[in-house]
């Protein structure tokens, strides 16, 4: 049998490790080289001219309610230029959004105008373009020399993230950027750049990569992770990790929808959509914390349920059913930060006490996410330079990478454990098999031994029965000195005869009656010959009778006794043994020509009762006919019953 072997031996594992390290040694320099090459490309922004000084005018709009139609109107309306009060300002130009702002629908509204001077046009440079990194507030509009050039009427949730790009009309001397805003809400205008239109286009695409393309990619990662995790969760419902991971992917996918859909023109839907997106960020934070707890084995049931309850309540409170939901949105994010910090502290304490690779990686990822979240929140509230981009989606990328790392480590660990376990089981099975084989061999040996012992016992029994009694009587006679040389010869001859009939077939259960009689003849032949008695054998060779072991023993004893009586007492010269079938019975007769006796006399009574008893046991009839001068005839009538009937041995 093949010995159990581990699927991968330590040598194999080492060899594979070495291969991995070699690949890493090649891949790492390649990656570094690629990164370096990327860095060599100068940013397109450097080829543009940054607008340094602008002039600003806050045009008061009164107290209209900002809605799609009013905004459209405002954007198109030319201001009363005579009222303009231009003040110099530097970019980025920001009016900060407070942490807790009250925004009644009829709050005072303004439109901020930024006057950007266009450098004198030089021939051969082609058309100029304007690039704005970020414009937050209402829908912006670009005017040139008093004429509306371009406006972005998209829903403000979309447009604040879209970099501004517009072509400058030929011959324009100044550009005007208009951003309507509500007083308490503020606005932000990031850096503006002027340059050839083609460079502006490229730079705009670069910027869009950060603003839209990357977050959209994150969304696909989240969807993939969600599908994979839910499949695993379905297959292994007992493992909580997969469910948590799937739910994580789901909520992040929801929050990523903002990078795909523009709800412009459907104000009601846009509000609900915004609410869902904001709440999904809360759930992302909470789920990430719980997942980390699960992986790190932090039970903390109160903290967990507290986090979930918080997420549920904040989702409920920020639903657009209540008027104050718009203000609550920002507050919600501040609370998210708070909840995140709590979760991170608990996780950090755990990791500090039991530092493991997974724990540390998770902590770092969550910390990164928190930092980027705070950065994004500051960006959102214009506390930070609006030139920065919303980095929270990048944080989720880091988080998901770490999640994947953790799960794959778990999977590898589980596979390793299973392999180890299997190896162990194989080993044990091998041992058991060996043990069984040994036992089997031992049993076989014992069986042979037992067989031999049984055989030996049978032989000993036979020896005892057949030779033992004869030997004992010979010994006793020899001791008393009653043994003449003739008797000795006779005895020894008897012993030799007995030996002749010791063979396996004596042990057979059923034998033909003829066989039994033949054996009897062998036993008495010599003795009769010695006594000068002629034996006439008159047995039907086709006697249809068989006898079991016991029956044949009784029969033999009975007939031996009868013959012994003849030898001892009858003084006969001839003895005749007949056996034939007669009227459904086997008749065995022993006839002698001796002096005969009286069957009722007491002298011969000694042997007779035993014989009669044996006949009775056999179910046979024993009849003794004796005439004083004509000898004696013993007739045994054995009925041919089922027990004594012989199955025909030959087909004749």
């Amino acid at each position, binding site marked *: 049998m093949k010995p159990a072997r581990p699927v991968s031996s330590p040598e194999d594992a080492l060899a594979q490790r070495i291969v991995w390290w070699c690949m890493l040694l090649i891949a790492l320099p390649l990656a570094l080289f690629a990164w370096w090459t990327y860095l060599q490309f100068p940013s397109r922004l450097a080829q543009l001219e940054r607008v340094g000084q602008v002039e600003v005018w806050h045009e008061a709009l009164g107290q209209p309610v900002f809605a799609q139609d009013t905004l459209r109107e405002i954007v198109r309306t030319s201001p009363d230029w005579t009222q303009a009060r231009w003040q110099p300002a530097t970019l980025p130009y920001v009016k900060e959004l407070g942490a807790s702002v009250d925004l009644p629908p009829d709050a005072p509204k303004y439109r901020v105008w930024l006057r950007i001077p266009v450098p004198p046009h030089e021939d051969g440079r082609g058309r100029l373009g304007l690039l704005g990194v970020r414009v937050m507030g209402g829908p912006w509009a670009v005017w040139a020399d008093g004429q509306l050039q371009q406006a972005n009427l998209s829903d403000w949730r979309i447009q604040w993230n879209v970099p501004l790009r517009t072509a400058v009309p030929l011959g324009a001397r100044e550009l005007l950027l208009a951003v309507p805003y509500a007083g308490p809400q503020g606005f932000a205008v990031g850096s503006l750049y002027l340059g050839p239109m083609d460079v502006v286009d490229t730079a705009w695409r670069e910027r869009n990569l950060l603003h839209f393309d990357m977050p959209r990619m994150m969304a696909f990662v989240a969807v993939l992770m969600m599908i994979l995790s839910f499949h695993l969760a379905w297959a292994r419902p007992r493992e909580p990790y997969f469910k948590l991971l799937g739910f994580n992917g789901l909520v992040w996918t929801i929050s990523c929808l903002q990078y795909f859909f523009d709800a412009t023109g459907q104000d009601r839907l846009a509000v609900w959509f915004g609410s869902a997106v904001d709440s999904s960020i809360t759930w992302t934070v909470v789920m990430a914390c719980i997942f980390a707890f699960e992986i790190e084995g932090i039970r903390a049931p109160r903290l967990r349920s507290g986090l979930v309850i918080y997420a549920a309540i904040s989702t409920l409170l920020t639903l657009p059913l209540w008027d104050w939901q718009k203000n609550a949105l920002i507050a919600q994010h501040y609370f998210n930060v708070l909840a995140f910090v709590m979760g991170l502290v608990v996780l950090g304490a755990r990791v500090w006490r039991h530092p493991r690779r997974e724990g540390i990686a998770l902590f770092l990822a969550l910390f990164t996410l928190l930092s980027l979240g705070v950065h994004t929140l500051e960006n959102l509230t214009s506390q930070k330079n609006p030139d920065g981009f919303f980095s929270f989606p990048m944080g989720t990328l880091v988080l998901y990478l770490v999640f994947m790392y953790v799960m794959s480590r778990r999977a590898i660990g589980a596979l390793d454990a299973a392999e180890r376990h299997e190896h162990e089981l194989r080993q044990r099975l091998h041992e058991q098999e060996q043990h069984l084989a040994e036992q089997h061999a031992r049993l076989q040996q014992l069986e042979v031994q037992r067989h031999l012992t049984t055989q030996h016992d049978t032989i000993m029994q036979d020896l005892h029965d057949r030779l033992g009694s004869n030997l004992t009587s010979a010994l006793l006679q020899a001791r008393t000195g009653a043994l003449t040389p003739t008797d000795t010869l006779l005895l020894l*001859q008897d012993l*030799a*005869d007995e*030996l*002749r*009939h*010791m*063979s*396996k*077939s004596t042990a057979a259960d059923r034998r*033909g009656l*003829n*066989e039994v*009689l*033949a*054996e*009897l*003849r*062998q036993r008495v032949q010599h003795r009769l010959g010695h006594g000068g008695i002629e034996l006439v*054998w008159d*047995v*039907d*060779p*086709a*006697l249809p009778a068989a006898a079991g072991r016991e029956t044949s023993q009784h029969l033999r004893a009975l007939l031996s006794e009868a013959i012994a009586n003849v030898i001892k007492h009858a003084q006969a010269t001839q003895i005749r043994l007949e056996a034939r079938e007669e009227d459904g019975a086997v008749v065995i007769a022993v006839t002698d020509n001796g002096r005969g006796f009286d069957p009722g006399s007491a002298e011969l009574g000694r042997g007779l009762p035993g014989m009669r008893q044996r006949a009775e046991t056999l179910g046979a009839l024993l009849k003794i006919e004796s005439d004083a001068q004509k000898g004696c005839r013993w007739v045994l009538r054995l009925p041919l019953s089922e027990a004594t009937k012989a199955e025909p*041995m*030959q*087909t*004749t």
Partner: protein
Amino acid sequence: MRQHPLPRRITVMVVEDHPEFRDTLSRVVSESEDMRLLGACKDLPAGLCLLEQHCPDVLLVDLGLPSGSGMVLLRSAQILWGARCTAALLTVTGIDEHLLTAAAAGAKGYLFKSDQAADWLGTIRGLAMGQSPLHAKLAHSFLQQFSARAGVADADNGSEGASLPWVLDVQTHALLLHIAAGYTSAEAAQRLNLSEADTGRRIRAVYDQFFQPGPCLSPRELELLGLLNKGYTFKKCAELMGVSESTTKTQAARAYEKLGASNLQMALYEARQAGLIA
């Protein structure tokens, strides 16, 4: 028996390890007028040696020899001398199984060690004249074997029926039945109106049917197989047989070929099946 004097003396060979019995039997044979003792050996190698030099009319072999089974001698006698030599067993017990195996190896009878000297001589004469002895148990076994193999043919002509394998003519069947029922062969002959010589010959024919010609191994090959069967190495066998080890291996290879075996285990199995070794 005296009324049919043989043209020459019956040559007898005895292989028997019991020294007293061997001496007694040798003496009885030597002292009889119509027999001549070719030799008396005490073990297998000596017996094989003697058998290679002389062809006895009657070979008397004890099965349980110290250096190997007497079966090898029975086979060797068949190979060396064929029908010219009649082999018989020397037995105390007359166990029918041994006799059947011996008959398959070519034995044509047996000689009870516990019998009287006169009986021995009678048996040897009978064997030399193509007759065989039979006792009740052996007759029973023969009948069993026949009934197991073929049954009995209803052929009127005894000689014709007997020529077919595993078929008994009616007379021989009756003869076997009588002997199995305890009649002596003389009594059976009388009851069936057969001459005693005819009876003996019929029994011999039965023995002949039980003979299974084995593969024609040479006596040396047989001896070698016998030794290998006892677990001796080729080296030890070579030592015991007085030849080189490579010779024994050549002999073994030839024996394997004859037995249709590819290795020792198979060869021993085949040889055992053929009754060449015990």
